[in-house]
């Protein structure tokens, strides 16, 4: 057993390199107790804990991203990553910055070219609504529910004006 160079009592379990004022390196052997008192740490262990800290930070950042939620449909980015599908058209704005690198990776591009949609038309939807209101109106008339019929008639007028 080699005794500790510092206290001379404990069993030396660690080698410590010291740098003196002149820049010369000396090596001493110390026991566990002295090492703890003076804050000596094994380099290997130190490396491991730095890696742990970085990993921890990474997870926290990722968790922060994952907690991001689409303001329109409520899908979280974590859910998207799990199932690979977005929740609604708005998700593309909600997760815009997160999606950009992914889209680039898939398509080697991030700007659409090609056919465009003029947008803003909902003729089928409107016509369908009008048709439904008409049916409801004739139903109300047949049922002699004139109050309801009047309300439906007003609604129908508004829809037809749109």
């Amino acid at each position, binding site marked *: 057993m080699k005794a500790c160079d510092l206290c001379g009592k404990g069993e030396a379990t660690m080698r410590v390199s010291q740098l003196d004022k002149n820049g010369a390196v000396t090596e001493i052997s110390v026991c566990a107790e002295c090492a703890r008192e003076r804050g000596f740490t094994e380099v290997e262990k130190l490396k491991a804990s730095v890696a742990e800290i970085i990993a921890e930070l990474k997870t926290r950042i990722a968790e922060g991203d994952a907690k991001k939620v689409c303001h329109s449909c409520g899908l979280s980015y974590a859910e998207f990553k799990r199932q690979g*599908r977005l929740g609604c058209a708005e998700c593309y704005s909600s997760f815009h910055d997160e999606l950009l690198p992914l889209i680039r990776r898939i398509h080697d591009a991030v700007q659409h070219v090609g056919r465009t949609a003029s*947008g803003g038309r*909902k003729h089928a939807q409107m016509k369908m609504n009008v048709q439904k209101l008409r049916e409801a109106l004739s139903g109300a008339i047949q049922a002699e529910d004139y109050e309801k019929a009047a309300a439906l008639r007003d609604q129908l007028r508004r829809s037809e004006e749109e």
Partner: protein
Amino acid sequence: MNSSDAVVGRWLAATGPEADVVLSTRVRLARNLADVPFTHRAGPDEHARTVEVVRWALADTGYMTSGRFLDNDQLAEPAGQYLTERHLVSPDFVASKAKRGLFVSNDETISLMVNEEDHLRFQVLTSGLDFPEAFTAAAELDEKLEGQLQYAFSPEFGFLTACPTNLGTGMRASVLVHLPALVITREIEKVLRGALHIGLAVRGLYGEGSETKGNFFQISNQKTVGQTEWEIIETIADISRQVISYERKAREYLMKKLRVEVEDKVFRSLGLLRGARVLSSDEAINLLAGLRLGVTLGIVNEISLEQVTRLLILVRPANLQVLLGENLAAVERDERRATFVRETLVHQ
């Protein structure tokens, strides 16, 4: 019952350009409604409303007069499998529990699924290598629907889809090619690697994950952002033309150097098809693929390319049962399949 009585899609007529190698061309567009969550995240009411509004749009644009609209009940098995075998729907669409709708034109060139992964997924299938016809028809339907529906679209990302892999044009363009000579001469790997190298996907007869049964391969684009529809199509058409010329060269080579072996393969296929008493679907497809090679090479003259191509669909389990008008157990089905094929290919 003979196969010529059966109704099959116009795309199976084998009359299109390069039909000796290319069975069909397909252009599929994915579109979503702006104000409804994507299918997997929408509720039952939203599913029902989407089906209804698309149905309305199809009626208003006049498409309904030349096709039919099927709802959930009409999509239940065996209809689901029947439609899948005819390349009109995806297996995922059939398996889905959500309220769905399907439009199919009478000639089966156009089909439109409502509430697949995207609200609308429509395709045009044409015979042979024919992107101009397929894309023009798909774009026409797209334009008409866009006059009725509000699509989810952003100037930056294009048409917005549930999965970012379909973003942008929302277009998947593909050709289904028959490459037996390249397989026999072992040149196939090289050729397909070329397609993969320029970013195209190569799959089996029934798309993703399916085997390359009977030496049929599907070549399609993977990228949908950053290229116009025509640029994407040109890339696939270019590689298709290359593949066609390689396959034809390989067929020529076989006829020059290995004529006896090729004739042997073709006539064995025909012999089994004409003689077998029990025939599974897979075996029938492989034999028909061998016969198809013989027909395109002029080794077999009394059978037309159209007959063989139609049979490739009609021998499949659900199509066979619908054709025979009976629900059959697998063993009985294999017997009836053999009889059906034998009667269709009887010496003329």
